[in-house]
């Protein structure tokens, strides 16, 4: 809100410097704020409501931007446990989808609320907390990949890696790390 106000002020100064009068009244700028983009419409269609972006649980930042790249910190689902003993592949697929929704919440924040700025998902790393003999991590992480594909189309597919591990922070059943290109 403060940022928007600053921008509006800056814009006004800029326009004044250019010798023009400000065309858009503040009220109009304010009503334009909660715009519903194409991706928002798609999310509504899929019945997905993005939660508030999760706050970090340790000494890290959930989002980093470098040029047009957005790096999103590892996101986990609410579910704790080991896939292959506590959970089936299908259950874990749902957890990976939930982790993907958390990624989207962070991404939306990184895009200043406008998910239409997303150009493509570049890289996706999915880590599944697994029993030693569980070998379907790739099917679990499809939960994230297929969510992104359903939302962004082919651009939502990433150069992906799905792997297993014996342990994850706070007992998460999986964790997903993603990198996006945005406009």
């Amino acid at each position: 809100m403060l940022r928007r106000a600053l921008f509006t002020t800056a814009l006004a100064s800029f326009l004044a410097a250019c010798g023009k009068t400000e065309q858009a009244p503040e009220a109009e700028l304010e009503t334009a704020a909660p715009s519903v983009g194409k991706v928002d419409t798609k999310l509504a269609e899929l019945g997905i409501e993005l939660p508030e972006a999760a706050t970090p649980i340790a000494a890290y930042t959930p989002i980093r931007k470098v040029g047009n790249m957005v790096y999103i910190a590892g996101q986990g689902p609410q579910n704790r446990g080991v896939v292959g003993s506590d959970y089936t592949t299908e259950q874990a697929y749902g957890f990976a989808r939930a982790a993907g929704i958390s990624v989207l919440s962070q991404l939306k924040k990184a895009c200043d609320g406008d998910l239409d700025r997303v150009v493509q998902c570049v890289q996706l790393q999915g880590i599944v907390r697994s029993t030693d003999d569980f070998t379907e991590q790739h099917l679990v992480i499809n939960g994230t990949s297929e969510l992104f594909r359903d939302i962004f189309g082919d651009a939502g597919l990433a150069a992906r890696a799905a792997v297993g591990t014996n342990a994850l922070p706070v007992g998460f059943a999986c964790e997903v790390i993603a990198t996006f290109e945005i406009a």
Partner: protein
Amino acid sequence: MERRSFFAAAGATALGVSLLSGKAAAQSGGKIDAKLAELGVEVKAAEAPVAAYVGWRKVGNLVYVAGQVPAGPDGLVLGTVGKDLTMEQGKAAARYCGINILGQLKAACGGNLDRVKQCIQIQGLVNSADDFTEQHLVVNGTSELFRDIWGEPGLAARAAVGTNSLPLGIACEVLAIFEVA
């Protein structure tokens, strides 16, 4: 059950098992192609993706290659290093992952591997016994291949780690990022 088998089919492709059925890449006769021939490395063309993944993504001059499996001439190398497989067998598997990466990279370069400037990052994951501690030597299978091809620029800021399990039971999985011209 039906859903499961669909996932299985999609997943196997998603892992890039394309090397098994890939067609031989068209010979463009570049410097790197000559080097590969010298080393006796045959790079297969990456197949078009059909599931929830892509083999590579480009952003500006960076190419991100998806995690590649150790698909060799005899199929996938499966097993746990330090138990089912020796370090040397694991290293040979990591070399197959590297060759598979080259197939994706070549596709990303429009067939011309001479466009590769450097390997930026490699992450190698080794399916390991709890007491196995030579993951770095296993992933040398990929790193030394790239060094033999490109010299020093083929070496990457690398991480080699162990894990208790990998998709399909493969011995290792390697992902990489390259800078291209």
